[in-house]
């Protein structure tokens, strides 16, 4: 789960990481009012759950309330990579002497958290990683010990020569890891961590992604979820325990199992079609899930046909077929549906499916081809 910059900064602030004063505004007048209150130059920053807002014009300096209002006006409602900006963060501008990159990720290869840091901060860290990998310092954190003092101290010394500044950075490294650890994050990042001309160290940006599997014990983070910033289909599917991702094609896909769902999308593409979505309904034959899945897909007006690909496995296919029939009867104005069902009691299942107006397919290849054809 992703949270906004202003929310990540709240988590950092609670941990004791220095961040500049700032508040969120949902209207130009609120932004102007905040600018007035701070009484100095502020930054107006688009709050969207996607990177690249700077290049899209979503971050602007404002000297006075009038300018704050103007910039907020231009940023609010802006579309950044398909997401609409509903909130801006109004935050005090900070003088910058040096920018540092600091991030913690859960590293799959070492199976431990890794702290990545670079004295070349403020830029796209993936570019640095590609072009100048030696500019990135990596510190693997033993999950049983956390960040040890000698580690944060040594890393901080790599980032800044001034011992007084390095000491501040060492503390921030430990606190960033604490924030990462305590919130079950998969990523916690400060880019840039700024050293001011006066030698103070401040986090002027903040990014935190949290492990979805840990949300059951991260109530405070879960409460930060911004439903207005996500696809309504994703919200709906999450509530039903489905997994849904919208794509831009016209062949809707309903599949049981994530790997099979991806392989089905890939096959649609291979045969010249365009998948409209990823949708994994899991192992159950519960008709409610199928109804929800159909409704979510039908919410996308570009969908021209739907391919349902179920590998029955241990689930009995006749059960699945009954669920499908019940679901299809509850939903109106369905575009053509192609069903492929394999597994125990497959024959009985095909008999049951005769009750509804659908096309059946014997194999995945066959089903995909038919669905693409029907989408034309």
């Amino acid at each position, binding site marked *: 789960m992703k949270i906004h910059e202003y929310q990540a900064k709240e988590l950092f602030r609670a941990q004791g990481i220095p961040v500049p004063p700032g508040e969120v505004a949902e209207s130009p007048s609120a932004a102007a009012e905040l600018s007035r209150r701070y009484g100095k130059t502020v930054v107006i920053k688009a709050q969207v759950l996607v990177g690249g807002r700077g290049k899209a014009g979503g971050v602007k300096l404002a000297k006075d309330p009038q300018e704050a209002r103007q910039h907020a006006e231009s940023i609010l409602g802006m579309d950044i990579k398909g997401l609409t900006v509903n909130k801006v963060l109004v935050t005090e501008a900070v003088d910058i002497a040096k920018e540092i990159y600091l991030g913690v990720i859960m590293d*799959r290869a070492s199976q431990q958290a890794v702290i990545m840091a670079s004295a070349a901060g403020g830029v796209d860290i993936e570019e640095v990683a590609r072009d100048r990998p030696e500019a990135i310092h990596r510190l693997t954190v033993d999950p049983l010990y956390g960040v040890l003092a000698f580690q944060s101290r040594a890393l901080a010394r790599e980032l800044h020569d001034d011992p007084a500044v390095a000491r501040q950075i060492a503390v921030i490294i430990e606190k960033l890891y604490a924030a990462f650890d305590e919130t079950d994050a998969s990523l916690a990042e400060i880019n840039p961590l700024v050293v001011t001309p006066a030698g103070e160290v401040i986090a002027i940006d903040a990014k935190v992604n949290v*492990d*979805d599997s840990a949300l059951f014990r991260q109530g405070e983070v879960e409460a930060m979820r911004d439903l207005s910033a996500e696809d309504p289909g994703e919200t709906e599917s999450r509530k039903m325990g489905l997994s849904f991702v919208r794509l831009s094609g016209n062949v809707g896909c309903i599949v049981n199992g*994530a790997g099979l769902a991806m*392989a089905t999308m890939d096959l649609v593409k291979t045969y010249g079609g365009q998948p409209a979505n*990823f949708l994994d309904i899991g192992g159950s034959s519960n008709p409610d899930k199928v109804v929800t899945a159909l409704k979510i897909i039908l919410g996308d007006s570009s969908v021209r046909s739907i391919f349902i690909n179920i590998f029955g496995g241990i689930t009995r296919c006749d059960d699945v077929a009954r669920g499908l029939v019940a679901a299809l009867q509850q939903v109106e104005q369905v575009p053509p549906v192609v069903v492929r069902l394999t597994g125990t009691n497959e024959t009985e299942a095909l008999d049951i499916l005769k009750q509804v107006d659908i096309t059946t397919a014997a194999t995945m290849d066959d089903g995909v081809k038919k669905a693409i054809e029907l989408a034309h």
Partner: protein
Amino acid sequence: MSILIGKDTRLVVQGITGRDGSFHSAQMLAYGTNLAAGVTPGKGGGRFEDRIPIFDTVRRAVQETGANTSIIYVRAPFAPDAICEAADAGIGFIVCITEGVPVKDMARVLPYVRSRGSRLLGPNCPGIVAPGDKVKVGILPTAIFKAGSVGVVSRSGTLTYELVFQLTSNGVGQSTCVGIGGDPLIGTNFIDILQMFEEDSETKAIVLIGEIGGTDEQEAAGFIVKNLSKPVVAFIAGQTAPEGKRMGHAGAIVSGASGTAKEKIEAFEKAGIAVARIPSEIAPLLKKTSSAVSG
């Protein structure tokens, strides 16, 4: 011979009285697995299907029945503890089916399991089947299998069923089929299984089923070139997956430019390993690469 499980497997089911645990225990028994014991705290002394003894702790189950393998069906918040319990009780091979285990918990559990000398398969995996021995430790549907000489290793669940089904339909039997799981941190990875297949006399060729996210497939490709004499056919799901979205599995996510299907396919092809572009190509490619594959 199969890998990891076989005739010597004596299985204890952790969470045997739950909905999934009891259902799949019956399935495993029906296939032929030597199900020695079940564990559900507070239900010790009972019996599953009137014959399999249930214990309060894994340690007791091991003491009383000599169980050497465990499968875990308990809910995600309790699965890390169940894994540790099995390792602490001396279980050598632990299979965790449970989906949705927090990654942070796995980061702590994995060194625990290793320090006790155990091997973990999963979590969030469908388990393992040895068709020749008729042994299953997991949730895979047994009807799709056929004894043979192809080792299958996969990060996926139903996609594995589909691909194994296609192999069997084409007359290609399997030595062992292993689902390593779709989570970011797992106990056993491709390389571990590839090494075992290399050493397994029954296995003549290998199918590797990967997906987007991480670099396990790239590392597997490097390992195959250096260490494997047996032919491998790979398949990677998720070529159409967008960046930054979790595709069902917790581990199936493209981060920035890393973990894409394209990058993984290229890694295999660079290493001279055959990659099937669509599922139905796998069986023909296998037959082409290995004369030992029947059908």
